[in-house]
């Protein structure tokens, strides 16, 4: 009886010990793939199961290559997805689900964590659900990257916490001039475009930290990062997201 009790307590102590943080990007990059399921739909996407990790979306570059080639853009979808994540990481906003370059079944593309607990914003009344500070951070991000196609189908919202996840950083997000960011528009409408001291620090850090993002990068990626740097300076000058 006593032995059993000690054993139970011992197990409890182990479970309560601080565990090292799980690095999602590292798991996505190097984790053992345990399943690959093709998804119905046009873009040849797959849902990939990672051992000891979460499910992830695999988006093959070859399926969207024709768009970049026909418009003369020196980039792939994976380059755009990854640079958006890296910019978000540099800012420390935590808005973009981790995404990495990965080859799956011999095909190059990007692998992005599937966020299970946050539905597509269009499925909710997202304007009343998102936290105002999340909205402002997301608007800063959208302004920096000059994103176009941020509709209720291109971001996720956690209903319980009001947290935002930004997705779909692809060709149309950057280069379709007829589109716009609903997040940026909502932020301006509600007067939430003034930056906090935390956002100011994040922008200052980003401005001085772009070298790792552009070294060896494709020319379109370099343009996106440098434009973001210029826009970060503009926000800092004005103390708010310009309209």
């Amino acid at each position: 009886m006593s032995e059993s009790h000690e054993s139970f307590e011992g197990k409890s102590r182990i479970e309560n010990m601080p565990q090292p943080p799980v690095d999602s990007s590292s798991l996505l990059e190097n984790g053992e793939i345990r399943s690959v399921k093709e998804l119905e739909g046009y873009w040849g996407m797959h849902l990939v199961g990672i051992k000891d990790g979460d499910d992830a979306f695999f988006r093959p570059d070859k399926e969207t290559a024709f768009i970049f080639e026909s418009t003369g853009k020196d980039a792939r979808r994976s380059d755009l997805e990854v640079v958006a994540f890296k910019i978000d990481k540099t800012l420390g906003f935590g808005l973009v689900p981790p995404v990495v370059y990965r080859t799956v079944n011999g095909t190059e593309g990007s692998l992005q964590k599937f966020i299970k607990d946050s539905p597509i914003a269009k499925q909710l009344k997202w304007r009343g659900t998102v936290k105002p500070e999340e909205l402002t951070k997301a608007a800063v991000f959208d302004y920096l990257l000059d994103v176009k196609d941020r509709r209720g189908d291109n971001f996720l919202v956690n209903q319980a916490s009001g947290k935002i996840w930004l997705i779909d950083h692809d060709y149309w997000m950057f280069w379709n001039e007829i589109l716009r960011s609903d997040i940026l528009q909502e932020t301006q409408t509600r007067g939430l475009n003034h930056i906090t001291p935390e956002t100011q620090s994040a922008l200052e850090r980003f401005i001085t930290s772009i070298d790792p993002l552009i070294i060896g990068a494709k020319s379109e990626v370099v343009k996106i990062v440098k434009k973001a740097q210029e826009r970060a300076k503009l926000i800092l000058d004005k103390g708010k997201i310009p309209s």
Partner: protein
Amino acid sequence: MIMLYFVDLFELDHDANQKKIATFKLLEGEGGKVEIEGEHNHPVVEGICGEGIFDYKYARPGKLYPYDGMNFLENLKYHFRSGYLLATDVKKQVIDN
């Protein structure tokens, strides 16, 4: 014989299972309006029918609605491309009349 053109729309649930939420159908010679079969009240279906979708294919200004027929159908796959929601390409089926 008449031709039916259609697009299926899928969503991924919390358990990572894909579910078809609607089929958008265009029947040749029926006035060019897309009919919807499936979850009419789904917020995503209501959204695209009520608010319209952009013309990604030709980057023309304005929005497309089910009454725009084939242009609307052809743009659904560009509108849904995240994996959380995905649309098929336009598929064809011959119908005997």
